[in-house]
Structures are given as C-alpha cells and as structure tokens.
C-alpha cells in the first residue's frame, strides 16, 4: 500500500477490485452528484464565494488550561481559588491576564476573550474536543465532521493543497475513547483532514506522506496511476453507487504527491533561523510556523494540536495526581505558558506583517476549564461549567471581553456562550453566510453548517 496523507492507495501487487472498492468507499456518505449540482444551481455553494472565504488557524490546547490561572484570573478570591499566579495589566484598559503571558499582554488589543464558555455534558476531554471542533454533541451513528472538513466539503480546496490540515498529528489517548472531533465523520473520506504525522521541529523533519517510496521510479508511479484509472473506469461502468468521495480522495492523494507547491508549503527548513527561533524550537512553535506557511500557500483551515495526549508528559491537564497526570503550576510556569506566549505572539505578528491576519481567523480553543478550588494536591481538575477561549484576526474586533464569570470563576454570570456559538463565530469570521450556506446532513438533507448564531459582539 502507498500511504498518501490518510489515503491508502493500492499498488500493483495485491490490488484486487474488491479491496480497491473497499478502500475507496470506506466512510462514504457524500451527496450524489446530481444533488450537489442541484445545490450549486440554487446558489448554495456559489463559485464566487469560494474565493472570498477567509482562512482559519485553530490552536487547540489539548488538556485544557485552567481559566483561573491564565485568562480569567480572580486575584481577590480566597487563596484556595485564586491560585499561585498573579495577573498583569495588558495594553487594553481593565483587561488583565496571567503574568506568564507578558508578550500576549502587549497585543490584547488584537484579541477578543470569551470568558463565559460552558457546556453541560460530561467532564471528559473528548466531550470538549467534539463540542469545540464540530459544534455538536457526540452521536456514534452519525459522527459529526471537524469544522475544517465542513469547509472542505462546502468550499473545496484552493489549489493542490488539501483544504483541511491538522498539525503535527491527530489527538491520541486523552482518556475516554477514540472520537476527538477531528475526522470528516459522515462527510466521508474525501474530506478527511490531512494529518502531517511528523514533528516539524525535528532536524530530520520531512512529510513522509509526500514522499514516493524509495525505489519507485516515476515510470512505476505512472503505471500505478494508469492501472487505478482503468479500474475506476470499470467500476463506473459496472456499479451504480456514487463514488465521488473515493475519486476525490485518490485525486487529492496524487495531486499531493506530484505537486511542487505542496512540497514547498511544507518545506519549513527554508525559513530563516531567526524566524524559526522566534516561534520557538519546539513542536508547538514550529507547528504554528507551519500553519502560517500553509494558509499562505492556500490551505483554508489549519488546526494545531498543542499536545496529542494528556498522559505522562508536561501539558495543560494539571491534576497534580502524582502519577501519569502529574502536571502542576511548575509545568505552567516553566514550560507551557512561556511556550504558548512565545509561539502565539510570533504567529500573530508574522501573520500581520505578511498581510495575512486580516484574512485569517485565529482561534485558540480548549475542552473546558479547571475546578475553581485548587485540589488537595495543588492542582485543578476538569470543569466544563466555565472557561475562557479567544479569537483574533479577520474582522474580529480585538481588545474586548465577551461575557464574565462570578467571583470564583465557577459559572458564567454575563453572556453565557456555548461551543456551537464559537464555531458559528469562526465561520462568520471566515466570511461564511450561515443563513445562505448549506451542507449535506447525515441523511443527505441539506442543513446549516452549525445550529447556532455567531456572537455578534465579536465583529466590527
């Protein structure tokens, strides 16, 4: 098998028609071509709108930072609530954030904080991941697609690069099952995210899925392509089921393998040392730099996962449990906050200097908050009733705070916000008219991209 992104392309030996069909049709649930053409005829996927849609970079803080220790501090609360860190004034009058984000404090005029996020489902990482990345609760019978897959389905790619990329790789074990809201779900394999599956901070970094296997010549590669085209033609003549999704998957796979633009987009080693240093020589920092390169090269939706697990490593999930989840305030102070502050501000400055920030929504999201009471071990545990995320870029009006929590950060007391509203706001920031744009639902009936209204206060 030849792996290209997430698409397994059968090779000459061992490729039977049955296995080819199985590989190609796995996960299919797209619209029939006539249905797609009908939607386009009704202007619901207008050709002109594709070129006007802005980009999105989502940074997903896997493990979830405590809101009381980062962006919604309560310095006047009892010491069992306020935690160890102190707030500092930012360049927005009256807005204070954690002392360990000094660079971000200088650019809060660009950032819109949402301090009143909450959800009412279980306090697992996975619930929050699915809410924030799909806008929906979990339904195993109709797995909802990642927002980037929605954008891929409705607007398609801009060029040879996939429209939806996730860096540096998929979220793995976060404790409660395999569904993290980062698949195309019922939209089918043609709209699966492209996972980099490599660490761009490594000296030997390369995107393995863009490399033709060693020993394969261009002739053998072309021969395989011709064989697949022949099998495809046979299938079209003998089958009645729509194969739009698998055709698109293979087409995308071959475009990636042969596109010089794709190879150049991922060539992070072409950046100067000064730029790479400014983002931070670590997986997260270099992934943020890669995200800038990708939107610059035409990728519509990039997600950067800050961590791919919560177990046995330094991450935001500060239970301080003395075991596999033993993150504490020291991890925040020495590792996580400086790393985030350095990379996030580098990304915003870089996007702005290149004229990309006005065309890119940057969303920093996480699964939930952390308990207002510091636990008996000096950490905080999961807490969905309140947390803070933030947006900037595009036509997001920075320098503001949406919503507020009570004196202990326990619950929203002003403008409570639910996860689908954040996704609706991201779509609106990208220039998508949610009232006029539809997508196929699980049963092919057209539906809205997300069942929520944007937070109108966020926009200029």
């Amino acid at each position: 098998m030849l792996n290209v992104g997430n698409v397994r392309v059968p090779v000459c030996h061992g490729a039977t028609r049955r296995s080819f069909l199985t590989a190609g049709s796995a996960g299919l649930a797209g619209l029939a071509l006539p249905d797609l053409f009908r939607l386009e005829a009704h202007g619901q996927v207008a050709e002109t709108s594709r070129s006007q849609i802005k980009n999105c970079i989502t940074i997903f803080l896997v493990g979830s930072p405590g809101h009381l220790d980062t962006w919604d501090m309560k310095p006047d609360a009892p010491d069992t609530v306020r935690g160890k860190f102190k707030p500092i004034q930012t360049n927005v009058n009256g807005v204070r954030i954690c002392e360990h984000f000094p660079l971000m404090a200088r650019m809060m005029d660009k950032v819109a904080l949402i301090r009143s996020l909450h959800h009412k489902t279980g306090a697992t990482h996975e619930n929050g991941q699915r809410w924030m990345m799909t806008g929906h609760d979990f339904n195993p019978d109709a797995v909802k697609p990642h927002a980037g897959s929605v954008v891929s389905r409705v607007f398609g790619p801009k060029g040879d690069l996939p429209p939806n990329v996730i860096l540096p790789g998929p979220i793995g074990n976060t404790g409660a099952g395999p569904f993290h809201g980062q698949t195309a779900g019922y939209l089918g394999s043609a709209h699966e995210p492209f996972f980099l599956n490599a660490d761009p901070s490594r000296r030997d970094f390369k995107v393995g899925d863009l490399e033709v296997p060693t020993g394969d010549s261009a002739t053998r590669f072309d021969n395989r392509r011709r064989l697949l085209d022949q099998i495809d033609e046979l299938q079209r003549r003998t089958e009645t089921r729509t194969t739009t999704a698998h055709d698109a998957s293979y087409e995308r796979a071959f475009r990636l393998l042969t596109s010089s633009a794709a190879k150049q987009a991922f060539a992070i080693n072409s950046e100067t040392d000064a730029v790479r240093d400014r983002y931070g020589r670590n997986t997260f920092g270099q992934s943020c730099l890669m995200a800038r390169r990708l939107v610059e090269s035409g990728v519509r939706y990039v997600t950067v996962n800050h961590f791919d697990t919560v177990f046995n490593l330094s991450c935001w999930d500060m239970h301080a449990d003395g075991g596999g989840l033993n993150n504490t305030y020291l991890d925040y102070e020495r590792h996580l906050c400086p790393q985030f502050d350095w990379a996030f501000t580098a990304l915003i400055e870089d996007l702005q200097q290149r004229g990309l920030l006005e065309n890119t929504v940057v969303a920093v999201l996480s699964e939930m908050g952390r308990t207002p009471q510091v636990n008996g071990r000096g950490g905080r545990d999961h807490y969905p009733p309140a947390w803070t995320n933030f947006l900037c870029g595009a036509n997001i009006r920075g320098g503001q705070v949406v919503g507020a929590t009570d004196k202990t950060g326990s619950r929203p007391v002003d403008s409570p916000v639910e996860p689908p509203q954040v996704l609706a706001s991201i779509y609106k920031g990208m220039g998508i008219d949610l009232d006029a744009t539809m997508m196929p639902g699980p049963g092919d009936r057209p539906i809205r991209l997300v069942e929520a209204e944007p937070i109108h206060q966020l926009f200029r």
Partner: protein
Amino acid sequence: MDQKYDGPAPMAELTLRGRRVTRSTVVNDWGLQLRWLVTKDGKPAATVPAPRSGDTYEHPDATPGTYEITLQTWRYVNYAKGADGEFTASKFIPISNAVRYTI
C-alpha cells in the same frame, strides 16, 4: 508524542554596563522559561524570571561584593517529579557567558 529538546542548545550573549545586564536575542530558542542566575561572592544569591518582553536586568542588591550574572533556560527532559514536587530530570541550564561586577 512528548517534546524533545535535543537540538543545538540555546545561546545568548550578555553585556554589562555599570550594573545593568543586557542580553542578545536567544539563538536556537526553545521558547521555555528564561531566568537570571545571580551569585554574590561565589554563592547563589537569586534567581529572577527573565521574561521575553524585556532584555535587560539590574540586580537590586547594592551591598558590597562581587556579583556574577548568567542567563538560564528551562530544559525539559520529561515531566517526572519527586516527592517534593520538583522536577527530577528537567532543569535550568546556563545559556550565556557570565558577566561580573564588584561593588
């Protein structure tokens, strides 16, 4: 995947004017916490966070003695901690020359 910080070590150049230390841009910056290490008469006197929002430091203690200042960065190896809550393998490491002055 856990993060590995095994590439070229970060480096910065310190210069001294009076008692004010200025650091250069950190090359090969890991992006982790920076701090100033101050010794007085050969003994550790203070560790002070060195936020990236600034590049200078002046130690407030003006009592007589010989002061030496270096810049350190946190080096993450793993998240393991001892019973006292402190990291066991990860630690601060020096990344600059030392500057000295005597009061």
